[in-house]
């Protein structure tokens, strides 16, 4: 089997359920990172306004990335 055939049959090796499992792990990892960051921001910051901005940017960006991942898995 040559490279072309392997790449052509990649779908058989990496199935949609496997990608959904990886997507789940990605969501859990994002949750963990969010928890660590929120813990530090809530406990150790001194200016609320910068933290509110950082939270908004972090969660909007994170949600957008998860949406890209989800759409990719759905369309795969």
């Amino acid at each position, binding site marked *: 089997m040559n490279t072309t055939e392997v*790449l052509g049959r990649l*779908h058989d090796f990496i199935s949609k359920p496997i990608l959904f499992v990886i997507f789940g792990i990605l969501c859990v990892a994002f949750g963990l*990172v969010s928890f660590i*960051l929120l813990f*530090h921001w809530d406990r150790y*910051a001194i200016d609320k306004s910068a933290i509110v901005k950082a939270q908004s940017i972090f969660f909007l960006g994170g949600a957008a990335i998860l949406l890209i991942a989800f759409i*990719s898995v759905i369309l795969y």
Partner: protein
Amino acid sequence: MIKFNLNPNEQIVLTVRKHWIAIIGQLVALIVAMIVPLILLLVIQAFVPNFPGWQAGHLIYLYSFAYSIWLMLSWSLFFFAWTEYHLDFWVVTTHRIFLVEQQAMFAREISSLTLDKIQDLTIDIEGFLPTMLKFGDILIETAGERKKLAFINARDPEAIKIAINSIQKDFYSRPVPVAAAGSNAGSNAGMGSPNVAQNTP
């Protein structure tokens, strides 16, 4: 939010923060990490238009899925770096300086230094960019255990030096209660000032 254990008559005067230049490297790294896979995709599509799997569609979605994992990693690392940058600061009060150093996630050091312990305060602004963008290092020599303290890439160190010198001047000219004045109180006690003593450098 963090709370400092201030004395009754102690007030926070200023906060010393890092200049945005200290985080610019990580920001550039994030932008590069976001752009490079997209450029790579364009290059693959331009030079290998018959790349197996593109037509069927599944490879492009697998690529975008892998890209989103890569983005999430870069995004998280950038915000870890930003948190370390943002939670590194000094708080100058009317009596002392709180030195808050965020070394890493879950690694943090907070110490305080009374203004009378400061022996020398030096600022170091070297180069075109630091001069133009107003950032540099603040170095404090102390009489305490930690002989030298440094705040690297501080915002507007000149203004901070002037402000700390001014606060120090106020601190020394301010009368303090005898109980808090320690040995100075004893030497002043016989000079007609039973309740107050002077802070001395």
